[in-house]
């Protein structure tokens, strides 16, 4: 005999379509030509980092803003809202609980958006490879443009990673957002496999 509360729990939708937009993302094709190049150049030279320290690596990001490393030289700056940032640095191990937030924040960023995996944990789980709640490969959940390996990588390595990312952006290869939209179902399946209490729409606008 099932209890009434449980019945309702089963029937309950995990999100309310009145409260959440349930549209799926679309690919926005690149406009070929000089304008796109110009925009790419601007994107590369104005990387705004989403200020979201997901793991232990975020402590390595602080020196970036200091006088010693000063990433503002490259037009980079921390930005407190994903709406306005275009670079998401996953700084270290991502537990399942954090992954949910990572996905949400990632989806809230606007289309040309870049992800940098920081540290070994994002590559293959690092020292947490056999943990029961830490993901191993970040690129199965969101598209990653650059990995900076190490445990932890030094700021110099990060800057090198930025340079690499900028190169990719300028070459037009950093199309993570479109990739995500293209392989949306695959990503969602992977995400839903680990995130058990999925209480949000498929795409968090």
């Amino acid at each position, binding site marked *: 005999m099932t209890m009434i509360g449980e019945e309702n729990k089963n029937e309950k939708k995990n999100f309310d379509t009145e409260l959440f937009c349930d549209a799926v993302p679309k690919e926005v094709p690149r406009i070929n030509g000089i304008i796109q190049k110009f925009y790419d150049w601007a994107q590369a030279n104005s990387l705004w980092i989403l200020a979201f320290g997901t793991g232990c690596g975020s402590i390595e990001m602080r020196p970036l803003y200091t006088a010693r490393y000063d990433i503002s030289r490259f037009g980079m700056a921390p930005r407190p809202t994903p709406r306005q940032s275009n670079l998401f640095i996953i700084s270290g191990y991502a537990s399942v609980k954090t992954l949910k937030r990572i996905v949400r924040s990632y989806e809230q960023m606007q289309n040309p958006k870049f992800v940098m995996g920081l540290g070994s944990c994002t590559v293959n789980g690092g020292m947490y490879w*056999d943990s029961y*709640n830490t*993901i*191993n490969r970040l690129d199965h959940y969101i598209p990653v443009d650059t990995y900076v390996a190490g445990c932890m990588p030094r700021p110099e390595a990060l800057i090198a990673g930025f340079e690499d990312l900028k190169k990719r952006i300028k070459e037009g290869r950093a199309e993570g957002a479109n990739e995500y939209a293209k392989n949306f179902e695959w990503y969602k399946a992977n995400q839903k496999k*680990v995130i058990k209490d999925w209480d949000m729409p498929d795409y968090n606008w």
Partner: protein
Amino acid sequence: MEEMIERIKLKFNAKDINRQKATLVFFSVEKKDLEACVLYMKEFEGYSNLTMISATDWIETGTFGLTYHLHNYKNRTDVGIKTYIDRKNPSMVSINTLWAGARVFERELKEMFGIDFPGCPRVDDPFALEGWDNLPPMRKDFDTVKYSEETYFPRPGRSTKDNVTQMEEKLYAVEAEVKKGIAKTVRKNK
């Protein structure tokens, strides 16, 4: 301290007295005596602070060992009160009425070991894991490697580079040999 141990022995039939330090002692009591013992320690012996509740999975004996760590602010001493509960149907009396802070520990134990604490508010809510639907992960019969490999898309070609091994094999090979030899000699002499 010693008088206190004597009293405990008398009152609750405390066993396995393990005096780790001058200020730290462990002992175990029966499951049914635990609440009374903790209450006694709190009210009469001055152990007013619940530092934490820890659990150990004694899979061999089929029990969970619970340890209630209490601290006395007056004479700066700690006690660990152990008790053993059945692993098949793990359930323990909740002490959240004595310390509101116990709720957090009990919630965590419920999630990680599956030990139930009837009467503890929100004990069934997820603590650190969201939507966990497997065996409680801290139990010894939960195979975390297998789970991780099944769930988290392990990246092939992964190899472990332990720092100690690395140093012994590559950087300081000679010193490592010497160290091994010394160790061998010592073992022989023993």
